């Protein structure tokens, strides 16, 4: 009886894991970034809708799929996650606030908390906090530092947000 229960438990776990993998291309493992298409992206981790689509930064370049954070209720120190890009030497993440550039990060990983800590910021630790109406994007850079793939320009806010648009090339500090 115990062995039967154990087998059934394993089968259930496998079924749940397989059920989240809706994108056959993603099932093929690492590869060039593919277009995320229209609509929201489902997280393979928890199945919830995250990171809604935005406008592409540069037409014609491969698009990086992003997993987190969601557009609203992202929290003060959200975690940014995206799909790895084959051949990328480094990633560049940028956050633009409603008043101008907010924060930037460079690294080889595919996730980072806002502020740059590799783990969730403990209470009381100093660091930047997300601002409502911000926009973010991630680039994949080749070994020469040139852009080889781009995400869309995505909206993000720490709390519930009525929605705001992120238009590439617009929304920066006045006077440019």
């Amino acid at each position, binding site marked *: 009886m115990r062995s039967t229960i154990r087998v059934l438990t394993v089968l259930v776990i496998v079924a749940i894991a397989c059920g989240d993998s809706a994108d056959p291309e993603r099932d093929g493992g690492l590869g060039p970034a593919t277009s995320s298409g229209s609509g929201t992206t489902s997280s393979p981790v928890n199945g919830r809708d995250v990171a809604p689509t935005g406008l592409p930064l*540069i037409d014609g370049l491969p698009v990086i799929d992003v997993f987190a954070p969601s557009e609203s209720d992202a929290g003060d120190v959200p975690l940014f996650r995206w799909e790895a890009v084959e051949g990328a030497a480094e990633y560049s993440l940028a956050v633009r606030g409603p008043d101008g550039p907010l924060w*930037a990060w*460079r690294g080889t990983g595919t996730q980072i908390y806002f502020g740059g800590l590799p783990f969730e910021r403990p209470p009381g630790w*100093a660091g930047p906090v997300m601002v409502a109406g911000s*926009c973010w994007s991630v*680039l994949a850079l080749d070994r020469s*530092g040139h*852009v080889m793939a781009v995400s869309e320009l995505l909206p993000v806010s720490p709390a519930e947000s009525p929605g705001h648009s992120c238009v*590439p090339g617009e929304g920066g500090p006045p006077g440019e």
Partner: protein
Amino acid sequence: MPGSLRRALLAFLVVGVFTPTVTAASQGSEISFPPVGSGQWEGLVLVSGFITEEWDRSDGTFGVSVTEIVENSVNLDFTVDAEGAVTEGTVTVRLDWLAEDVGTAPVSHDPYHVVHFYQQSGTLVLSGTAERMVAAGTLNYEAYTEASGALVEGSESVESIDVEWVFRGFEASCVRVSARLVETSANAGVMGAARLPREVLSGSTRIYNEIVTQLLTWPAELEDPDQIAKAITAAEQAAKDLEIRELPEARHLLEVVQAWNALNAELAALDTCQKQIVGWVPQAQQSWLTELLRAALKTALAFDIEGNLLNVDHYMTTELVDLWDAGLQEQAIDGDLLVRFLDAFHIKLDEAVAEANVAEIIDIFAFASRFGFPNLYDEAKAALEAMA
């Protein structure tokens, strides 16, 4: 009122009117010297404020006296042994105060104005524990009196007096022990008067005490933990290396950021006591890092005397983006730097267009696109479309 009577009054008030009470430290909590540093401690006794006395006589005459601390220098030096006891302790005393009396003399009703000057000086021996410290010994006690600006003949006096001041500790942390004055011997002068209640009403005499005293001690020598000292040195060296560079690159900025992060990691690993010992480390503050990086970026994008960017030819477009990202990561991009960077990217875009360098144009287009610089965006986009 002559100095001797003044002292007697204070002594009377201390002994006859006021019964010193022991001020208890936090009930149930132990007050002791923490075992830190070399065991050498130092400190001071703060004595400040004034006492006002007023009295009325049945014949209609009156008097007002205000005693005020003028000079306060009471410094402590002592050693704390392994059992927490004070040894080799000295208290160097210099206390000056004056009492200014105005009123009308009894019987004659003549007005008077007299100022008495007092000074206690010398060295006392300090002993005891953090719970109860005792400063005792002999002080020089000088007094002289002036009446309406003229020195009253025979009013000067100099004598040696034995005093004892008792302090009870009420607060102890890793780097400080604080205590209150709880007992004084008779004839203790202004320190005795400090022990009076805030208000004393005795017949026709009214006394209002605004003198405050507090003893503060701290370890004389404390060295930062070795790993902290090394991390501070590393951060300072990285900063110096950056400051002398004429053409800083992003990796040089990131070396400082790395050293700064390492220092903050060491500070975060300290326990509560060690954190207090180390105290505030300027090199660990974000403002220190931000200003350093900002200055380096302004060196990289310095202007010549004609207002042109001096070094833009030295940097590739990707290196300018690297510098931007390194600066923005630590909030070092201010309005001035933003303008300089935009000027640089416009120059680089013109060069990339002239050279038909698509990769560089894309880099600039991506920069303008994600950070919202419309003019740069439009120009880069137009250049790409022209090449398509």
